């Protein structure tokens, strides 16, 4: 039998039919067997009804993207078949519940297995276990040991009662036995996993863990897809450490509560998506002018307005860079994997304290919600750095009869920061332009001094931010003919596209931006100088990162007398992440056009 290093599995049905939890079970099983997984959920903004599906890529090596191909589809209804059969490949299996009399569409190369899932579930106790029966069938097809499934369902359902646990085990066995008896001998199986213990989590989990590990003890947020898990997760962690989570009445309350906590000296976080970011804009300006640390997570989704709340997009780049009003310095971190989300979230708190300003962590729906394998998270790499705080003695020494110079104009732009409760440190923090004491001032010279002080705080080069990871990652040859550039969760599809191109003999490179502001301009320019073509691939309609790069990197290169390579923009904004082959096709088009032209 042929062994494969990568396989894909999907279950689909109506929302409310346990689609997510079934996918979750398979993911846990695969993780414990030592496979790498990448989950991809498609769902809509409703609780019951409406098609939803959960696709899992299972590999013996790290997987970071989904594909348009599918080996096994488990269908709970005909709609699942109609919507997803095109992904099924030659040799693939369609496991469908015989209950709804499934029909295989014409031309579908996969084999239809009409399995009495509901009936078998009923026989062991309840039709609700239909999905578990399908996991038994899937175990046989994928060549995975059934015992691993049994352990997981016992752990999951045995908690309710030992009887329910045993019923689920019986459901698994029934599915497996049915498959053994009725299905053709499989022609392939997954190569064995390495058995190593890893983590599976989504970006939102990593935000919560990174925040808690970095000393964040306050969260205020308003529920919104796809960010709510951050608040929920912190609600399960922070009370153990004396921290507080408030479900605010709206996003304005959420951000201002966090700013209040930041003023008091705590580390505070709020997490939202585009609509919430819009509501927070005025308060973000306040935090900039009053110089108060706060961490804001934007899990980007389809916009504008309510847009496509359950669909993936990367269209808040400009909103995060240029939002609010007036002139403010920006720090926008953009992790691309769950692991990076953990470390960059922790970094965000140090940056907020150091530069005394809001710091954004921009994720996107795919990163926020898709479960992926993480090797490990190392808390010893997280250091808490509080920035320019003062002891009571230092404050007493610096206090003047007129008060404390909280906004002292310094060379770095960073001023000493007393916290409420510290004697002689009293000052006025205000959104109004102010002098060094915080008192209102509209004096033109003071205004310019204060603006310049705030704007010079944040370094122009992200290398100076002292992050846990490089602001720009590069994989590929020294001088690529085609350089793919992206940010966020597209690290997977772009990385896989690069491999596809390389396999076809193209000299392809992949640069991934981890900091959107300050942008790694020099690092990009250096790479661009060695490339013939650059494609910036992103999930928005304007080409927001492309525009930024064209303007900033192009300008820097011209100033340095470097030749700017041909810059191309690849945009996808249909609600789905890129598929590697889409990016590869665009790259080939660009290069072949160039060769022909």
């Amino acid at each position, binding site marked *: 039998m042929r062994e494969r290093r990568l396989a894909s599995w999907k279950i689909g049905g109506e929302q409310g039919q346990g689609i997510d939890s079934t996918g979750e079970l398979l993911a846990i099983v695969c*993780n414990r067997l030592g496979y790498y997984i990448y989950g991809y959920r498609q769902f809509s903004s409703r609780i019951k009804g409406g098609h939803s599906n959960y696709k899992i890529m299972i590999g013996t090596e790290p997987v970071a993207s989904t594909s348009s191909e599918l080996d096994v589809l488990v269908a709970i209804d005909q709609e699942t078949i109609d919507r997803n059969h095109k992904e099924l490949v030659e040799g693939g299996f369609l496991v469908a519940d015989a209950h709804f009399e499934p029909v295989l569409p014409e031309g579908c190369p996969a084999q239809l297995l009409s399995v009495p899932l509901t009936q078998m579930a009923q026989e062991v106790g309840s039709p609700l276990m239909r999905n578990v029966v399908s996991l038994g069938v899937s175990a046989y097809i994928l060549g995975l040991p059934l015992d691993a499934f049994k352990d997981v369902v016992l752990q999951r359902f045995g908690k309710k009662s030992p009887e329910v646990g045993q019923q689920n085990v019986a459901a698994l066995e029934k599915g497996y036995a049915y498959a053994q008896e009725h299905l053709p001998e499989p022609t392939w199986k997954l190569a064995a996993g390495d058995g190593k*213990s*890893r*983590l*599976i*989590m989504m970006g939102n*989990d990593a935000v919560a*863990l990174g925040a*808690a*590990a970095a*000393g964040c*003890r*306050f969260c*205020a947020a308003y529920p919104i897809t796809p960010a709510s898990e951050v608040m929920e997760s912190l609600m399960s*962690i*922070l*009370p*153990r*450490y*004396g921290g*507080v989570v*408030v479900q*605010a*009445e*709206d996003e304005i*309350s*959420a951000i*201002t*509560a966090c*700013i*209040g*906590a*930041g*003023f*008091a*000296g*705590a580390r*505070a976080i709020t997490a939202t998506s585009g609509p919430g970011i819009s509501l927070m804009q005025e*308060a973000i300006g*306040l935090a900039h002018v*009053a110089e108060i640390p706060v961490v804001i997570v934007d899990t980007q989704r389809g916009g504008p307005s309510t847009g496509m709340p359950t669909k993936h997009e990367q269209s808040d780049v400009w909103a995060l860079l240029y939002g609010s009003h007036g002139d403010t310095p920006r720090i926008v971190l953009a992790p691309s994997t769950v692991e990076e989300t953990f470390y960059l979230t922790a970094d965000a708190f140090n940056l907020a304290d150091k530069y005394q300003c809001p710091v954004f962590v921009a994720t996107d729906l795919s990163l926020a919600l898709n479960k992926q394998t*993480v090797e490990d*998270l190392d*808390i*010893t790499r997280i250091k*808490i750095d509080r920035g320019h705080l003062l002891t009571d003695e230092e404050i007493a020494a610096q206090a003047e009869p*007129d*008060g404390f110079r909280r906004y002292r104009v310094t060379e770095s732009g960073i001023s000493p920061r007393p*916290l*409420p*409760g510290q*004697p002689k440190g*009293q*000052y*006025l*923090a*205000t*959104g*109004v332009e102010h002098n060094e004491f915080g*008192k209102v001032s509209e004096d033109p010279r003071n205004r310019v001094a204060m603006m310049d002080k705030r704007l010079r705080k944040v370094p122009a080069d992200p290398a100076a931010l002292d992050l846990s990871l490089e602001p720009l990652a590069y994989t590929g040859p020294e001088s690529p003919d085609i350089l793919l550039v992206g940010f966020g969760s597209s690290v997977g599809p772009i990385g896989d596209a690069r491999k596809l191109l390389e396999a076809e003999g193209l000299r392809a490179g992949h640069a991934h931006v981890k900091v959107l502001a300050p942008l790694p301009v020099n690092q990009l320019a250096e790479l661009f100088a060695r490339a013939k073509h650059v494609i910036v691939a992103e999930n928005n309609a304007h080409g927001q990162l492309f525009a930024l790069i064209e303007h900033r990197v192009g300008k820097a290169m011209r100033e340095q007398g470097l030749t700017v390579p041909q810059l191309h923009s690849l945009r996808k904004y249909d609600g789905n992440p890129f598929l590697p082959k889409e990016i590869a096709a665009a790259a080939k088009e660009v290069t072949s056009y160039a060769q022909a032209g």
Partner: protein
Amino acid sequence: MPKLADFKTNEKSWWCPGCGDFGVLASLQKALVDLGVEPHDVAIVAGIGCSGKIGNYINCYNFHVVHGRTLPTAMGLKLVNRDLTVIAAGGDGDGYAIGGGHFLHALRRNVDMTYIVMDNQIYGLTKGQTSPTSKTGFKTRSTPEGNIERPIRPLQLAIAAGATFVAAGFSSDVKQLSSLIAQAIQHKGFALVNVYSPCVTFNKVNTYDWYKEVLINLDEDESYDPTDRGAALQKLIETDERVRGLVYKAPDQPSFQELFPGYREEPIVHQDWTMPQEDFAELLEQFR
């Protein structure tokens, strides 16, 4: 012990001579002195408008925020440092118009903090437009034919929304007002002090003389029971809220802080935030 002078700043006031807010400032300073609170242990979150300038004139930690957002800001501040005396202060526009949503939720959330509203029934700093507490028919620059909307009744609204402490003050009676503010600070929960604070420049109807004539002092009414929620609402309806004194104080309602799981005696800002490696390893177990 702190003295009145400790709470003063040398800043020249921007308020018009005779502004009711002077009385609120003096009452607040007196209340803090009477309670023996040190200036560095007080944090005031002020809103936008004339009243929002109160933080400029009182020596303590001050945060002058964006319009309408004093309550959530003060909530965040107080929850992370419970040792501070946290007071939100603003006007009727700040609290009941742009900040109206937060007002309702602050009331039902019952975070232990104090909210002082300087209610002059007009927008002063923007030079005289109608406010949410302006009476129907009130003529202003934005309602030249008279206000066609009905006013918010903040005291009834507060009690209906679940307030645990509601007081009404009059800015020219510093003795009573400072006592009400002190009681509000001592209350273990969210405390509203709505103060009639006349605008001498733009409101020629609700003047000092007018208030002196119409306000009924509940503190002098021995038959009035401020712990009776129904009676309090009844009194407010009968008088159209033209009252001063302690209006309502709920007996023994736990605050948000008392109810929040795991909330500690030691303020969050003073806790050790490092997470032990064993704890972190345990947190990761749920992801395996």
